[in-house]
């Protein structure tokens, strides 16, 4: 009995000492970061880039977030919406993570956000662009460090109208992401006086484009607007050029048509114009330092996904630092993130009311192997966050 009491006293004393030293007992424990990202399948390289970016910020920050060491809990989401709920629950219930970071695939991210909302877990989306996440499904605990589908597409609509294109044909896969991109584009393009002759879609992830190229040639629009990504994007650009359309009808795209696909497209990529929140040749001290560090750490050039991962860590760090590592002060943590100015390699951004980045959208042109930034058609563009009640 005596020893137990002595042990107890010692523990209290130790805890008191810890309190005195670090201010808070919490600061001694590691902060638990759940990374739920694709590490296999089509999006594996995106998941890896996001992870690399996240970890790069942590190491630049002395291996800590909000003054606390970091412990990672990693789950491969396989970009499979059917497994999303279970995977997210594992991280939240079993591993008890302080923040859930994920993911690339919008369908998976939507399912994750539902679990996070039910458990009131802080969640940061480092890519998935579904408008809903910061629209009708927005939540106080949910932040996004990437973009909404609407943002780059809206900017592209404005660019194409300003270039004097009047009649345009659109083409995308028939899924929510493609639909939202086309809607965003149309909103700005029609506002600018343009007219969409025809909206064409094909089932995801079908890549037989030949019938549509024939249609485009028959309709003879002033320009073509598309939304594609990955292998399908590479094939589309090649088919478009091989059909001889690239020289007669200019092709524009928002989003990721030319990200990670330039090598695969070869000659067909040259001169393509796209809009996105990041690009090559952004000459700022922050971006240069980021790119140099990334290249040193991972022996690879960073891409937009790495930036989004980096900013996810950065945004969480701002919140956690404001509460001195005490995650129980959730309201204050969120408040700090909401009011923060994130010093991103893409250029500084703030969060909108719906927690989506208010950011510049750049017009990029493919030159050599780079998406060179040639203009900034939208400065600090905020997503309209339709349906969000925050």
């Amino acid at each position: 009995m005596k020893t137990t009491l002595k042990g107890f006293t010692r523990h209290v004393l130790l805890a008191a000492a810890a309190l005195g030293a670090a201010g808070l007992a919490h600061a001694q424990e590691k902060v638990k970061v759940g990374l739920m990202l694709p590490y296999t399948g089509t999006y594996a390289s995106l998941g890896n880039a996001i992870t690399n970016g996240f970890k790069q910020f942590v190491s630049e920050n002395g291996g800590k977030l909000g003054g606390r060491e970091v412990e990672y809990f990693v789950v491969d989401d396989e970009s499979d919406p059917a497994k999303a709920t279970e995977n997210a629950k594992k991280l939240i219930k079993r591993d008890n993570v302080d923040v859930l970071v994920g993911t690339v695939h919008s369908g998976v991210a939507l399912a994750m956000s539902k679990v996070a909302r039910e458990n009131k877990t802080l969640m940061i989306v480092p890519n998935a662009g579904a408008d809903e996440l910061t629209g009708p499904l927005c939540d106080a605990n949910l932040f996004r460090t990437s973009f909404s589908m609407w943002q780059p597409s809206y900017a592209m609509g404005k660019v194409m109208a300003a270039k004097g294109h009047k009649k345009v044909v659109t083409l995308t896969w028939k899924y929510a992401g493609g639909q939202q991109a086309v809607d965003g584009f149309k909103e700005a393009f029609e506002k600018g006086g343009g007219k969409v002759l025809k909206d064409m879609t094909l089932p995801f992830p079908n890549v037989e484009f030949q019938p549509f190229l024939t249609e485009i040639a028959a309709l003879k629009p002033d320009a073509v607007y598309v939304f594609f990504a990955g292998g399908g994007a590479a094939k589309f650009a090649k088919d478009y050029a091989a059909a001889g359309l690239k020289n007669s009808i200019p092709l524009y795209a928002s989003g990721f048509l030319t990200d990670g696909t330039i090598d695969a497209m070869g000659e067909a990529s040259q001169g393509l114009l796209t809009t996105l929140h990041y690009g090559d040749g952004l000459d700022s001290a922050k971006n240069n330092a980021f790119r140099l560090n990334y290249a040193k750490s991972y022996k690879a050039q960073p891409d937009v996904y790495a930036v989004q991962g980096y900013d996810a860590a950065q945004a969480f760090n701002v919140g956690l630092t404001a509460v001195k590592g005490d995650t129980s002060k959730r309201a204050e943590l969120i408040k700090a993130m909401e009011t923060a100015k994130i010093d991103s390699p893409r250029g500084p951004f703030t969060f909108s009311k719906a927690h989506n980045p208010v950011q510049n959208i750049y017009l990029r042109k493919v030159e050599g192997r780079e998406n060179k930034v040639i203009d900034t058609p939208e400065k600090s563009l905020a997503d309209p966050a339709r349906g969000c009640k925050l």
Partner: protein
Amino acid sequence: MDFYSFLIQSLNALQYGLLLFLVASGLTLVFGIMGIINLAHGSFYMIGAYLAFALTSLTGNFFVAILLGIPLALAFGAALEALLFAHLYKRDHLEQVLLTYGLILIFEEVRSLLLGDDVHGIPVPEIFAASIPLNDTLSYPVYRLVISAVCIVLAVGLYWLIQRTRLGMMIRAGSHDRDMVQSLGIDINRIYRTVFALGVALAALAGMLAAPISSVFPGMGSQVLIISFVIVVIGGIGSVWGALIAALIIGFADTFGKVLLPDFAGLIVYLVMAVVLLWRPEGILKKG
């Protein structure tokens, strides 16, 4: 749609159908003649495309890559048959499905480890890089026509092999009655190994030929797998001509479906399959 557009769309359909036949032909052999449900067929297509990419980067010449790739694919197919598939002929279809599904996962993972997950491309070989102008805005890439020609040659070649040669006779006999063929003193195991290797090589060749126009990316195999099964089933299991006819039907259905009924484009191929199977439950040309 005016008449001229109709003609061009028909050309698109024909060309797409022939490409589908090329992918499905290997499956007709393996599934139709050997009775193996090979879910990994799409993976062999993917392996072919990556092989073309790797060998083209190494040798600098697409044709050399294909010439090297075909024997590699044949050897790979023969090795797989000897190590794995040879044990499955007398087993249940379920075990074949399990094995071949496992192979999909293994092949994808190995690909990821060896070549990464990026999207790659191979330039269309110089001599076929041109396009033929069809009207003032549209032209047709020569390489696509070359692929179509290769597909026709392969279809005729396969038909000749199976219907007109001694080996073909043994293959057909083996597919009817394995034990009887064996008791006649024919080495059925060797024949099965040959057929399987041929099936793998055909899928890989399809991947190699398609690589310059389709680009090379993770998961590309799963896209062709389902459509290949649709074609084999519509065509009549085991029939090369049936597969060719089915591939052309699907090519036309898909092309005109996308243009005329865009909202149902994803459905139309399966609708065609349902109608054909109602009309002829064993496929258009049942092997006989």
